[in-house]
């Protein structure tokens, strides 16, 4: 079980949350300007990083807010959580 620190509700068990994949992948502002390869890269390619990983979570069974969790994918240790406002 992961104890996920929701920035609004505090630490809760992971079954209250939905995983939303890697964070910091902004939607291209002008998709039509992209080549097929560039679009596919945005759509499908993820880093699958070992170690520190910024990822999106939603507190589905709580406040329903999306936020960013930093997690070590090797140890599953959660290193922190932040709201989108606070994100770079």
């Amino acid at each position, binding site marked *: *079980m992961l104890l996920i620190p929701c920035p609004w509700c505090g630490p809760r068990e992971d079954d209250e949350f939905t995983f939303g994949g890697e964070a910091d992948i902004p939607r291209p502002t002008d998709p039509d300007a*992209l080549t097929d390869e560039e679009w596919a890269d945005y759509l499908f390619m993820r880093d699958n990083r070992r170690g520190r990983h910024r990822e999106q979570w939603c507190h589905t069974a709580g406040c329903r807010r999306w936020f960013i969790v930093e997690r070590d994918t090797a140890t*599953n240790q959660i290193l922190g959580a932040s709201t989108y406002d606070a994100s770079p």
Partner: protein
Amino acid sequence: MSQPFRLNRGGRIDRHAPLQFTFDGRPIDAYNGDTVASGLLANGVTLVGRSFKYHRPRGIVSAGAEDPNAFVQLGHGARTLPNRLATVTPATPGLKVRHVNAWPSLEYDVMSAFGLVAPFIPAGFYYKTLMWPRRFWPLYEHFLRHAAGLGHAPDAPDPDRYDHVHAHCDVLVVGAGPAGLAAAHAAAHTGARVILADEQAEPGGILLSTCEHVDDQPGPNWADATVAKLSAAPNVTLLPNTTAFGLYESNLVLLAERLITDQPDHAGSEHGARIWRVLPKQIVLATGAHERPLLFGNNDRPGVMLAGAISTYVNRYAVAPGSRAVLFTNNDSAYRTALDLTDAGIPVAAIADVRSDPDGDLPSEARAQGIPVYPGAVVRHAHGGRRVAAAELCSLDGDPLGTVECDLLGVSGGFAPALHLHAQARGPSQWDPTLAAFAPKPGHGIHPAGAVAGELELAATLRQGTQAGATAAAAAGYSNGNEVEAPGANDSTQAPIQPYWLPPGNLARAKPQFVDLHEDVTLDDLRLSLREGYESIEHVKRYTTLGMGPDQGKLANPLATGVIAQLLGRDPASVGTPRHRPAYSPVSLGAIAGRHIGPLADPVRVTPMQEWHQVAGARFENVGQWRRAWYYPQPGESMHDAVARECLAVRRRVGILDYSTLGKIEVTGPDAGEFLDRVYTNAWKRLRPGRCRYGLMLGEDGMIFDDGVTARLDDQRYLMFTSTANAAPVLAWLEQWLQTEWPDLRVYLTSVSEHWSNIALAGPRSRDVLAAAGTDIRLARQDFPFMTFREGHVAGVPARVFRISFSGELSYEINVPADRARHVWEALVDAGRPLGITPYGTETMHVLRAEKGFIIVGQETDGSVTPNDVGLGRLISRRKDFLGKRSLSRPDSVRPDRKQLVGLLTDDPAQVLPEGGHVVDAPGPRRPLPMRGHVTSSYFSPVLGRSIALAMVAGGRATLGERLHVATLHDDRWLPVRSCNPVFYDPQGARQHV
């Protein structure tokens, strides 16, 4: 004769509370405080089971959760519990205990012929027979399954109650032996909230088994006093009968608490269980250590017992596990057992010690008592059949030292810390040569104390426990200097252990020598595994099934590490130990399921009209968690008859459908239109208030995700309908984009699915029914045209009425507050009765929409279908971007041979195609036949008087009218069909516009 092996004095049993249980129907006299195992031993019962593979007779080996043999079946009928250990089950009045894995009886086991005919099945047998000869496998399987029975499941639903408890605490202490009690006491003293869990009925652990003193009083008295103090403390939760069986991420610890009944006729027996999910801030592990067995020939004979267990039976239960003992050891602890036996009047005929010069305090004391000690000696072989009869001693060089008669052979190969929870917490371990075992590396986040930390001396254990409790409490924020002094005990010095794994030279040839008693894994099996290249301990485990029994190899694994290291000529540290996985001890499935069974397994959602549907005789179908009215058969009607009647009623007169399950999301705010523009393929900003539009939602991959009608309620407010199954996923999807990507949009999303019930009237007379039910909405065609919505009242209730249609008929979808929906429904039915109104269910709804070629997301689509594939390319806006748009121009999205939605008409109009049936050009001998597509929906259409089907066919739209074939699912036939336009009925859409 009762309890011939009960000692006259001592023990923690209550001699004033005799009780009787049965073993295989035979009455067993015991006392309150006994376990099943101690009760059996008191009555001289040593044969308790047959082994898993060879059905060799087996006896009680230990006095705890590590026993590989003493698995029994408890109780009977619905309450029976398989896989329980006699060594930890309290003896209770009337308890029915049965052996497992022997047939027809323990004494005359047919399967032990297995052992006579084919003496030993080599490791890897299962794998090899699976490979070759394969055709014999069913035979082997039949035989092995019968041979490998381990108890049986209850034959009726379990009447006991199982619950899950979620708990938090500052310090969880696992194990209530000396270290655990000291730790709990120290932690509780600081004011921290403490949970102390122990697997036994009585806290105290090893203190109950020895004669050692703590704080100048007998160990058990100190344990009782400490437990009394802890029970009185408001910040301590004491959980006896509770096994911590798994430790997970975030230090979540699962405990299984066996619930003990106090009902008079079976007081003390187990009725149900509780799973505790505990999230402690800090954990103190005081899980103790397991004594290691030793290898010699026939080391599995009943009467061969761990030395420590012998002390436990003598001291704690006042039972003599035998009448003449031999001990075999490589460390000092067995001498304590020798002294315990001597004290109890049980002669010790010999102590074989592999060490050449055992000279510690305990060996000296044993010698002084006149016990014959054989230094540098080992047991080569145990004689005897159903019980050990003698031990054959020899020197380490193999020189015979004589055969000593005995019926009890105590063994001690040292102690291995019970690292299970420590390892599950990812605690690092290291090889400790003074223990000849793995022990935790110090300084990890959880706090091991006592034997689990490799500390076998009582005084040091108490100091360590006190220290661990204080440290854990401080780490949890309770460092108020309120420290307690560690309880005191005598320090004794023990001479070092001398590791003994593989019997030297010819001694290793004595057969059989069991490494894992439960799984019948022998020394030869380990050798074979290594010879065949399976050298990693994890490979040895899988090849031989080492440690795979319900005992989790608690005794076998630490022994195997040393044996494998020696066979490979390597350092045990590099061999390691198999991964310690939960559960530490068997946990019943009922406990794991808890209350999540039957109707509580998954919520059932019903609409406000549920009771009405039931009274009307509806059959129901599950749609996700929803129970929906499927069809309403009248007396004598088949499903086919009922659906045909309902379909024709809608096409000719009027029908009424409970469509409350549709997802409904209100999208409000100044930027709501812009938001819809981004998530739907078509344009929304210019939709006028009061109008409705059908929309398609795509994933970013361009594939259809959901569809439905959205109405503009007013300038800044839209109501979006989603498909029933997608209500939650669509809301989550919209929220994600809004929150993560477009936080600048001023848009708010609210699920109103359950606030508004939805009643659909459909059919040429639906306008008349709505008028007759009473409404202030003007219904004339020009006042309330198709694809608009009006607010007003229906049957006196505030309503939003939508002129949208999923049947192709004149239709009104009437949204009313859920608490008034039943009233409105009944008013409409009453008003419609003279017009022949007919309630219809989901099946008719599906037929009607298929006649119109309307898709259902998830039926025609499967996550690989674009709007163009289903003929909805016209809904794709060219003037704006939207989610998924870029993907629609990827090369794969514009292939001309993509599967496309077509209709299929069978040559035989009565033939209904199987849904899921493969579509091919022509049947032929080629296998596999090239597949053109598949049937997605298929029904008999009553209004058309023939079957219809929708299908996804490669390149299908360009070749309408072509001859195709569909495979039947159950017999090898091909049904000839022709493709056609997927709109079978009223292709101009005239009927919904009237």
